[in-house]
C-alpha cells in the first residue's frame, strides 16, 4: 500500500516531464532577442529540462528543436552574458516561440526580480532582494520599516518616524547604504538619524549581510543595503505609476508618482515625486504629542543606455521634518526617572498636524553622473561622480526666544569619484578592479549658540579594490576580493580646557593644540590617518538542483567615525553626557557566514548562521556621573573592546496548495563584550515573522495576514545609575533603571488587495491594510523612545495604486 502511494506520488510529481507516446514530430522554433534593444542574440542555448533536446541560436538569433512529442515542457534559455530564464510551455502542435533575454550590462541594474525574494546564484554571500512595490504593499512608509520582513534585519527607532537599519545586531557606521552605485553620506553616525533616502524612487532593495560589497567600501562589517532601479527597455514607451495612501493613525497619508519616457535610441528621462504628511500618531491609549512628520522628495534622471555604452545624470532632493515626542525633552536624570516610572508621556495634548520643537530638519541633495563603455572583449569601464549635500538641523525647546534657532546645524558636503574596470575575463576567471576617491567637508555653524556636537572637519578617503571570481560550471563559484582604504581626518575643534585636561589630552595629544584660545576653551587641530584593509572570500556550491550551500569569510576594518572620536556634550533625549575618545583605533572584524538553502516549487527554506569577532569594537558605556548646573548626569564614553556576535536567520516559504502560501522566518543574535563579560547593548531580541496569503485561483484579489513576535531581550548590560531626590523632606536614593528591556510583544497585520481596473493600459489596485489589529500596547527594546511611550496602536490604511 505504502509503495503504491509513493509510486502514485512520483507519478503525480513527474507530471510536468511526462511525455506522451503520441506522434513525436513537432517542431519548436523561434528567435531570441535582447530585451533592451531587440538585437538578435547569437549563441543562446535553449534546452528542455529533463530531456536531451537542445538548440543553440545561429547568426540570425534563431533556434529550432525537432522531434518533440506533445506535452508540457520546461524550457531553459541561457546565454553566457545573460541571466538564465525558465519558461513553461504546453506544446500541442509545432509552433514559433520568440523569447527575450536580459543582457548583463550593469552589475546592479540588471537584476530581474521574478519573485518577491530572490537569492542570486552568482554570489557566495547571502543576498535578499525585495521589490519596492512589495514593500509598499505591507503598508510600510519608511525604508527601514520594510526591513522588518527580512530575517536578520531590524530597526533602531527614535519614535515612530525615525528609523535606522540594524543588520545582524549592528547599525550606524557599520551598515552601508548604497543608492545609484554610490554610498549614502548623511550624518549616519547618529542613532537618531534616519537615512535621508526616498525609497519610492527606486525599484529594488537588496540586503547584503556582511561587508561583501567591497566595491563600495570595506568598513561596513554588518552589511549593506543597496537600492537600485530596473534597467530601461529600449523601446518607445511612456509609463508610470502613482499611489495614494491614507492612514487613520496619524491622520495622514502619502502620495507618490513616477513618470518615465523611453526612446528606442536608448534615451530616457524619468521623474519621481513623493509627499508625506502626518499629524500626531497615537498609541492604543493616548496621543503621542508632536510625533507627526512632513516629507517631500523629488528626483529627475535622464540618460542614454545602449548595450555597449551609456550615461546618466540624476538629481534628487529629500526633505524630512519629523517632530520628536514632546515628553522626551527632559532636563536631567530626575525628569528621566519620572518618565520611567510613569505609564504615559508627561505631555499629552490634543491632536495636531503642527510640528514644534523638539524636531529635526533634514535636507539631502544628490547629484550623480555615470558613464560606462564596454569593449569588444567584454571588459567594461565605468566612471562615476557623485556629490551629496546634507543639511541637518535639530531644534530644541530653548529659552529667550531661541527655540527657532537650531541647536545642531550641520552642513556635510561629500564628493565621490569612482572608476572601475570589470568583466576582465581570463579563462574561467572574471576580474574587476577599481578606485574610489572621496572628499568630505563638515561645517557646523556657530550661530546655534550651543557647543558643536560634531566639529568642523575635512575627511579624505582613497580606496582601491580588486575582485575576482572563478566559475567553472553552474554549480561551483569561488570569489574573493581585496580592498585597501586610506582615511584621513583634519578637524578643528574647541574643547573646554577643563575637559581637555581632565581626559589627559594635554599630555597625550599636545601636538593637536593650536595655541589659540577662546574664553575657557582651547582650539585644537586633531589629525588622524588610518590605513584599512578589507577582504572577502567565499564559495557557492549547488549540491543539487534545489540544494545550495554558500560559505564566506569577511575581514573588514573601520576607522572611527566623527561621533566616536569627537562627541563632547549633553545628549538631551538620553539625559547623558557623551564623550568621544581621540585614542580610539580602527576596529577589525572577522565574520564567517553560511547559507544552506533549498528551493523547489512547493517548499523553500534557508538557514543562515553566522559568527563574528570584532577586535577593537567601538562602543559607548557608562563611566560615572558628572555634576552640572542641571544636576548630576551619567557620563557615557566611547571605548573599544572585543565583541563576539553570532546568530542565525531562518526563512521558509511553503505553498500549501495553489491558493495558500505560508512564509515563516526567525532570527536570533547573541552578542557579547568578551573583555568586560557583558552583553552588548541594543541587540535585537529573538524575533519571528509569519505570513499566510490566500489568493483564489482565478480571483483578482488576495488576503494576507502577517504576524510578528519579538521576545523580551534578556541579555542587556547594566547601565543603571543611582540618583537622589527629595521626598517628604528627606533625601532618598533611587536606582534609575535604563537597562531593562520591555516585555516581548506580538503584532498582527492584515492586507486585502484587489484589482479594480485594467483598462486602457491603466492597472489599478486597491489595498486595505490594518496594522496592529489587536491594538496591542507594547514597547520595543529597539526604540530609543521606549522610556517615554508605547508603540503606535491600530492603524487602518487605504492604498490606491495606478500603473500606466
Amino acid at each position: 500500500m505504502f509503495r503504491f502511494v509513493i509510486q502514485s506520488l512520483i507519478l503525480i510529481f513527474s507530471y510536468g516531464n511526462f511525455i506522451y507516446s503520441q506522434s513525436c514530430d513537432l517542431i519548436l522554433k523561434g528567435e531570441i532577442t535582447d530585451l533592451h534593444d531587440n538585437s538578435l542574440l547569437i549563441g543562446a542555448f535553449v534546452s528542455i529540462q529533463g530531456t536531451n533536446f537542445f538548440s543553440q541560436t545561429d547568426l540570425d538569433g534563431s533556434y529550432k528543436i525537432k522531434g518533440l512529442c506533445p506535452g508540457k515542457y520546461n524550457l531553459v534559455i541561457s546565454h553566457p552574458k545573460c541571466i538564465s530564464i525558465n519558461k513553461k510551455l504546453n506544446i500541442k502542435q509545432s509552433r514559433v516561440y520568440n523569447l527575450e533575454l536580459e543582457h548583463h550590462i550593469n552589475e546592479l541594474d540588471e537584476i530581474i526580480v521574478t519573485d518577491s525574494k530572490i537569492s542570486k546564484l552568482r554570489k557566495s554571500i547571502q543576498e535578499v532582494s525585495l521589490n519596492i512595490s512589495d514593500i509598499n504593499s505591507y503598508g510600510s512608509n519608511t525604508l527601514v520599516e520594510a526591513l522588518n520582513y527580512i530575517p536578520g534585519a531590524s530597526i533602531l527607532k527614535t519614535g515612530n518616524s525615525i528609523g535606522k537599519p540594524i543588520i545582524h545586531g549592528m547599525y550606524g557606521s557599520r551598515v552601508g547604504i548604497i543608492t545609484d552605485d554610490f554610498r549614502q553620506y548623511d550624518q549616519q553616525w547618529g542613532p537618531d538619524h534616519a537615512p535621508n533616502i526616498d525609497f519610492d524612487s527606486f525599484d529594488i532593495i537588496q540586503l547584503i549581510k556582511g561587508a561583501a560589497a567591497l566595491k563600495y567600501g570595506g568598513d561596513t562589517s554588518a552589511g549593506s543595503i543597496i537600492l537600485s532601479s530596473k534597467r530601461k527597455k529600449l523601446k518607445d514607451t511612456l509609463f508610470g505609476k502613482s499611489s495614494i495612501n491614507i492612514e487613520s493613525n496619524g491622520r495622514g497619508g502619502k502620495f507618490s508618482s513616477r513618470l518615465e519616457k523611453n526612446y528606442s535610441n536608448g534615451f530616457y528621462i524619468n521623474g519621481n515625486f513623493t509627499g508625506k504628511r502626518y499629524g500626531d500618531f497615537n498609541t492604543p491609549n493616548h496621543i503621542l504629542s508632536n510625533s507627526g512628520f512632513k516629507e517631500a522628495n523629488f528626483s529627475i534622471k535622464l540618460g542614454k543606455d545602449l548595450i555597449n555604452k551609456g550615461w546618466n545624470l540624476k538629481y534628487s532632493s529629500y526633505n524630512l521634518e519629523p517632530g520628536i515626542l514632546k515628553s522626551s525633552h527632559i532636563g536631567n536624570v530626575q525628569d528621566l526617572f519620572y518618565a520611567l516610572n510613569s505609564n504615559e508621556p508627561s505631555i499629552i495634548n490634543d491632536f495636531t498636524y503642527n510640528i514644534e520643537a523638539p524636531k529635526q530638519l533634514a535636507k539631502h541633495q544628490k547629484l550623480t553622473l555615470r558613464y560606462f563603455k564596454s569593449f569588444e572583449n567584454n571588459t567594461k569601464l565605468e566612471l562615476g561622480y557623485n556629490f551629496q549635500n546634507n543639511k541637518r538641523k535639530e531644534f530644541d525647546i530653548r529659552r529667550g526666544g531661541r527655540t527657532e534657532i537650531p541647536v545642531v546645524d550641520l552642513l556635510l558636503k561629500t564628493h565621490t569619484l569612482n572608476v572601475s574596470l570589470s568583466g576582465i575575463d581570463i579563462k574561467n576567471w572574471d576580474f574587476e578592479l577599481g578606485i574610489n576617491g572621496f572628499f568630505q567637508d563638515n561645517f557646523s555653524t556657530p550661530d546655534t549658540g550651543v557647543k558643536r556636537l560634531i566639529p568642523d572637519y575635512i575627511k579624505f578617503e582613497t580606496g582601491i579594490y580588486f575582485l575576482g571570481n572563478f566559475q567553472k560550471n553552474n554549480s561551483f563559484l569561488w570569489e574573493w576580493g581585496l580592498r585597501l582604504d586610506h582615511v584621513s581626518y583634519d578637524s578643528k575643534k574647541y574643547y573646554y580646557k577643563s575637559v581637555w585636561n581632565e581626559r589627559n589630552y594635554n599630555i597625550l595629544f599636545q601636538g593637536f593644540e593650536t595655541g589659540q584660545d577662546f574664553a575657557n576653551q582651547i582650539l585644537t587641530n586633531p589629525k588622524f590617518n588610518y590605513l584599512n584593509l578589507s577582504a572577502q572570500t567565499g564559495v557557492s556550491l549547488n549540491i543539487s538542483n534545489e540544494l545550495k550551500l554558500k560559505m564566506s569569510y569577511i575581514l573588514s576594518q573601520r576607522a572611527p567615525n566623527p561621533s566616536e572620536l569627537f562627541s563632547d556634550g549633553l545628549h538631551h533625549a538620553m539625559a547623558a553626557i557623551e564623550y568621544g575618545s581621540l585614542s580610539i583605533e580602527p576596529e577589525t572584524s572577522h565574520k564567517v557566514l553560511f547559507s544552506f538553502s533549498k528551493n523547489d516549487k512547493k517548499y523553500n527554506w534557508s538557514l543562515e548562521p553566522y559568527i563574528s569577532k570584532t577586535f577593537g569594537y567601538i562602543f559607548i558605556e557608562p563611566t560615572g556621573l558628572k555634576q552640572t548646573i542641571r544636576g548630576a548626569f551619567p557620563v557615557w564614553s566611547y571605548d573599544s573592546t572585543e565583541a563576539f556576535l553570532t546568530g542565525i536567520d531562518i526563512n521558509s516559504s511553503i505553498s500549501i496548495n495553489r491558493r495558500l502560501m505560508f512564509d515563516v522566518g526567525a532570527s536570533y543574535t547573541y552578542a557579547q563584550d568578551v573583555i568586560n563579560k557583558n552583553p552588548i547593548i541594543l541587540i535585537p531580541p529573538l524575533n519571528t515573522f509569519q505570513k499566510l496569503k490566500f489568493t483564489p485561483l482565478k480571483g483578482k484579489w488576495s488576503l494576507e495576514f502577517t504576524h510578528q513576535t519579538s521576545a523580551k531581550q534578556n541579555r542587556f548590560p547594566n547601565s543603571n545609575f543611582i540618583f537622589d531626590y527629595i521626598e517628604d523632606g528627606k533625601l532618598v536614593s533611587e536606582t534609575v533603571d535604563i537597562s531593562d528591556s520591555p516585555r516581548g510583544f506580538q503584532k498582527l497585520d492584515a492586507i486585502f488587495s484587489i484589482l479594480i481596473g485594467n483598462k486602457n493600459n491603466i492597472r489599478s489596485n486597491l489595498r486595505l491594510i490594518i496594522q496592529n489589529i489587536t491594538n496591542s500596547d507594547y514597547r520595543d527594546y529597539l526604540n530609543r523612545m521606549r522610556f517615554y511611550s508605547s508603540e503606535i496602536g491600530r492603524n487602518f490604511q487605504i492604498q490606491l495604486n495606478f500603473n500606466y
Partner: protein
Amino acid sequence: MKNFLKKASLLYLPLLTILIYSCSKDDPDGINEEEFISNVVISVTSPDGSLQTIDWDLSETNMETINLKANSNYSVGLSFENRSDPTDIEDVTLEIIDEADEHQVFFEFADVSVDVTSANNDTKVGSRGVLLKSVWNASSTGSGIVRVYLIHQPTNFNATNREGFGGFNDVSIDIPVSITD
C-alpha cells in the same frame, strides 16, 4: 595586454585629482554658549539687614552653607548668570523674567523645614510668583539641604513636589542649609 594597461592607468586619474585637492580647514569661530547658566547667585538678607551671598558654580569648591535663624523672615533673591566668557558676563535672570509665563523657581528642602512665599517685589504672572524673590521662614533648627530648581515649561505651576510640576529642569543644584536658634 598593452591595451589593458592603458585602461588601468585611467584608474589613477582620480587619485591624482585627490592629491592635488589637498587643503586644510579654516579656523572655526568660537561659540559662547548662549543658554548656558554657569552661576547661580543666592543673596539671603536677614531681618537685621545683613547679607549672605552664595555664588554657586561648577567648581564645587565654594560649597557655602546658607545660615538661617529659626522663625525669622529672610529675603532671598535669586539670579542666574553666564560667566563662561569672563569678558562678557550675561545676566540670564532677565531672560527668565521676560519668559516668566513658562518658568518657575522651586525650592525643595531635605531634613529642614522652611516655609517659602513669594516676596512683594517678586516677578508675578497673575497671582503666581516666580519666586525669583522670596521670603523664607524656618520653623525649627537643624541642618539639611535645599535643592534649587529652575523649571522650564512646567505643566502645573502649583505643585508641592518636583514631580508634580512636570516640565524640565534648567537648573537643579543642592546647597547646604543650617538653621540655628
